[in-house]
C-alpha cells in the first residue's frame, strides 16, 4: 500500500500559487520530451512490456503526452474552464456572478486499469494544479511513479502531493479504504470495472468515469474528388485505425464513406489496405500474428464474401484486417487492427448505424475538415464527444475537454461570495 496521505502538513503548498504548480508540471514534462531522458528510456521498456506495442508507437504516445503538457496548454485549459488561473489561488471577480474561488475538491484517487499509455497523468496533474491531494493506482509500467520522481526534482512540495499506489489487489482492504476516503475518483476501465469501483465509493464522492469507447471516421464524397485526394484520406484513415494497435478509445474501427465520390468503394478500400501497409513501416504492429478473434472474424467474413456479401482483405505486414461492407445488423468489428468500411448515402445512414448499435463513440474523424453542417449534426446525434480531422484522431488537444468532461473542472469546488 502507499504511504499514508499526509493531510494538514502542507500549509506551504496551500499558499503556493497555481502558476508555480503549472510551471513545475510543465518543467518536469519538458524533461520527458527528450527520448533519451533515462527515466523515459526505462519506462518505455516497461510500457512495451505491459502493452506489447512497438517502440515507435510507445515513443509516439510519450511524445504526444509530454509535448502537450506544456505551460501554455495547461494554462489555456484552466483558463478555458475556470476563467482564470488565479481562481485557483483565491476569489476572483466574475462580473454579475459575483466572486468565486475554485477551491480543491479534496482527495482524488485515479484508477487506470486496462488503458493505453499515460491516461492517468492528465487528471492527476490537473488535480495537482487545483491543489488536490492525489493518489494514483499505477500500472505495472510505473509511468506515474517515474514522472513523480521528475516532478520531485523540480518541486518536491508539489510532488509530495502526488502519491502512487503500485497495483495491489483490487480488494486490498487498505486500498478500499483509500477509495472510501476519496472526495473524487477518476476511473478508467470496462463497464464492469467501473461498476465495481463505484460500488466502493461513498454516494457523495465525485465519480468521473471513462468507460471503454470506440471511434469512427466519416469521409464525405467531396473529400474524394480524385485519386490523389483519396490517397491522402486513406493514409490518414489508416493512421487513425492502427495506432496503438487499434486498442484506444480514439482508434477508428468503422469508416463511413459517402457514395457518389470520384473514387469507388472497392478502389478506396484497396487504397486503405495499402496505406495500412505503409503506416506499419513507421508504426509497426505490436504483434506479427493475427489475434484469434481477428482470425475468426476474417474466416466468417471470407465466407460471407464467397456469397457475394462484402470483401475482406488482410495485410500481413501491417497485421491488419480491412472488411468492406460487413453486415449492418452487426456492430463493427471491435477488434485490434481491424477496420470496417461502409458505403452510405449520407449522414443519416451513419447516425442510424451508431444509434442502432448504441455505439459509445468517443470521437469521429471527418474528411474534409471542417465537415458539412449535416455531417456535424449526425456526429452530434451519435453522441461522440469530439470531431477530429481524419489523421488526427489520436492527437487530441490537451487544452480541450476529454470524453466530454473538463480537464480541471471536476477537481475544484466553487466557493462563491455574494456580490
Amino acid at each position, binding site marked *: 500500500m502507499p504511504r499514508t496521505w499526509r493531510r494538514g502538513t502542507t500549509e506551504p503548498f496551500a499558499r503556493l500559487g497555481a502558476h508555480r504548480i503549472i510551471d513545475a508540471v510543465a518543467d518536469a514534462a519538458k524533461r520527458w520530451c527528450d527520448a533519451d531522458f533515462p527515466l523515459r528510456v526505462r519506462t518505455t521498456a516497461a510500457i512495451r512490456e505491459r502493452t506489447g506495442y512497438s517502440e515507435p508507437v510507445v515513443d509516439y504516445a510519450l511524445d504526444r503526452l509530454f509535448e502537450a503538457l506544456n505551460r501554455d496548454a495547461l494554462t489555456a485549459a484552466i483558463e478555458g474552464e475556470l476563467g482564470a488561473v488565479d481562481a485557483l489561488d483565491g476569489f476572483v471577480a466574475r462580473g454579475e456572478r459575483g466572486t468565486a474561488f475554485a477551491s480543491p475538491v479534496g482527495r482524488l484517487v485515479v484508477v487506470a486499469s486496462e488503458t493505453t499509455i499515460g491516461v492517468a497523468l492528465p487528471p492527476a496533474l490537473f488535480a495537482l494544479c487545483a491543489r488536490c491531494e492525489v493518489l494514483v493506482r499505477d500500472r505495472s509500467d510505473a509511468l506515474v511513479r517515474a514522472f513523480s520522481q521528475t516532478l520531485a526534482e523540480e518541486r518536491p512540495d508539489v510532488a509530495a502531493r502526488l502519491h502512487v499506489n503500485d497495483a495491489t489487489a483490487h480488494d486490498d482492504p487498505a486500498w478500499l479504504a483509500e477509495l472510501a476516503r476519496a472526495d473524487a475518483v477518476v476511473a478508467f476501465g470496462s463497464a464492469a470495472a467501473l461498476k465495481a469501483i463505484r460500488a466502493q465509493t461513498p454516494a457523495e464522492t465525485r465519480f468521473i468515469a471513462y468507460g471503454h469507447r470506440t471511434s469512427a471516421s466519416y469521409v464525405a464524397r467531396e473529400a474524394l474528388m480524385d485519386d490523389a485526394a483519396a490517397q491522402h484520406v486513406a493514409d490518414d484513415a489508416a493512421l487513425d485505425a492502427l495506432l496503438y494497435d487499434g*486498442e484506444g*478509445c480514439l*482508434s477508428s474501427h468503422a469508416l463511413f464513406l459517402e457514395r457518389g465520390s470520384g473514387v469507388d468503394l472497392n478502389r478506396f478500400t484497396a487504397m486503405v489496405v495499402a496505406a495500412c501497409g505503409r503506416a506499419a513501416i513507421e508504426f509497426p504492429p505490436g504483434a506479427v500474428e493475427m489475434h484469434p478473434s481477428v482470425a475468426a472474424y476474417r474466416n466468417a467474413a471470407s465466407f460471407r464474401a*464467397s456469397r457475394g456479401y462484402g470483401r475482406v482483405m488482410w495485410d500481413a505486414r501491417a497485421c491488419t484486417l480491412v472488411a468492406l461492407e460487413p453486415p449492418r445488423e452487426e*456492430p463493427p468489428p471491435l477488434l485490434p487492427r481491424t477496420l470496417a468500411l461502409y458505403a452510405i448515402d449520407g449522414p443519416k445512414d451513419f447516425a442510424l448505424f451508431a444509434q442502432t448499435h448504441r455505439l459509445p463513440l468517443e470521437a469521429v474523424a471527418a474528411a474534409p475538415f471542417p465537415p458539412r453542417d449535416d455531417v456535424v449534426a449526425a456526429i452530434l446525434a451519435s453522441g461522440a464527444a469530439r470531431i477530429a480531422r481524419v489523421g488526427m484522431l489520436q492527437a487530441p488537444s490537451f487544452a480541450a475537454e476529454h470524453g466530454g468532461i473538463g480537464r480541471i473542472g471536476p477537481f475544484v469546488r466553487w466557493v462563491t461570495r455574494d456580490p
Partner: protein
Amino acid sequence: MSAPSFATLSAAELDERILAFIEAWHTSRAVANEHEFGVLARELFAYQVAENAPYRAFVQSVRGSLEAPDDWRQIPAVPASAFKEATLATFDIRRAEAEFHTSGTTQARAGRHYLERAALYRASLLAGFDRFMLPDGARLAYLNLLPDARTQPHSSLSFMMQVVGDERGVRPPAFYVQGEELEVARFCDDLAALGRANTPVCITGTAFAFVALLDTFERQGLRFTLPGASRIMETGGFKGRVRSVERPALYARLSEAFGIAPQAIVAEYGMTELLSQYYDTPASRAGDARVKAGPPWLRTVVVDAEGAEVAAGTIGFLRHVDLANRSSAIAIQTEDRGYTIGEGFVLLGRETAAPLRGCSLNAEDLAARYD
C-alpha cells in the same frame, strides 16, 4: 456458378458407405481404414460441392477450383459461423428430418444445421458414446441437466441424450431444465430414488448447469453417493454465462458432491455444427490436461491463423472433418484453440474477445453495457 462436371455418389450411396464405416468400428471394433476415410472424405467433398451451393461458392473462392484435393486435410473448412450466414444443406430443407440451432450466445442470429437423415446422426452419436462413455456396457439411468428434447427439438444435445437414454438407458431419460430453470428438487428426488434402488446413473449437463447445481447443493448442504458404475458427462462451456470456473475445480466439486472419482467425470466436446463428438480419453482422465479423442470418421487438424496445419504440440485453431455431416458441410473451422498430442488433442477453449489492453471497446464489453 455451375456445379462441377465430375460424377459424384448419390446421397443414398454415401449414407450407406458412411454408415458401414461407422458400424464396422462400432460393432466389430475394427481399426479404421485410413485409406477408406480419405476416399470417403473426398467423395463426400465432391458431393457437397455439387449439391451445396453456398459451400461450392466458398470452395471456389478459397481454392479457385472445385476439384477434390488430394488430401482430406486440404478440404476447405467453412467457419462454424457460416451456419448463421447461409443454409448449408445438400438437399431441400423442407425434407429435413431434424433441424438443430446453435445457441447464438454472442450473435443475435442462431445457426441452423439441417439433417436430411437423422439416422446418420443417431448412428454416429451412439457409436461414439458406446466407445467412450460405455466401454463397460453399463446400463444406466440418464439424468440430464438439459432441456427436454420434446420441448426443445432444435437442441442437438437434448436430441443426443434422448437417443442415448432411449437406446441405452434402463428407463426413459429425464431432463431437468425447464425454460431457464434448473429443477433441482425433482433432480434430487429422482437421484435419491435411484440411489435407494442402487441403480447407477449417468448425469449429463453443461458446465454452467453443473455450477448452478453445485451452488444449490452447497447452499442446502446436499451431498450424494452415487451407486457404483455411475458417471458424469460434462459438455459445453460457459459461453456468455455469468460465471466461469476452471474445469479441474469444477470436477473436484462434482467428485465431492456425488461421491465419485474424478476419472468417472468425462468431458464431451461437440457442437451443433458437428454430428460426431469427442470425449476425454480414459488414460487422461486422471490428469488436468485431458486429451480428447473421437471416432475415426471425425478427424481434427490444428491450423494457424492463416489456415496452415501446425506441428504437433503447437497451439492453433481446431478444424474438424466429420463424415456424419453428409448433408451439410464436411469440414468445420472452429474458433476453439488446442494442440494435438498423440492420437488426440487438448482443447484449450475459445478466445472470444481480444484482450483489453487499451481503452477501446470490444464486442463483449459493448454487449455487457446493455445487459
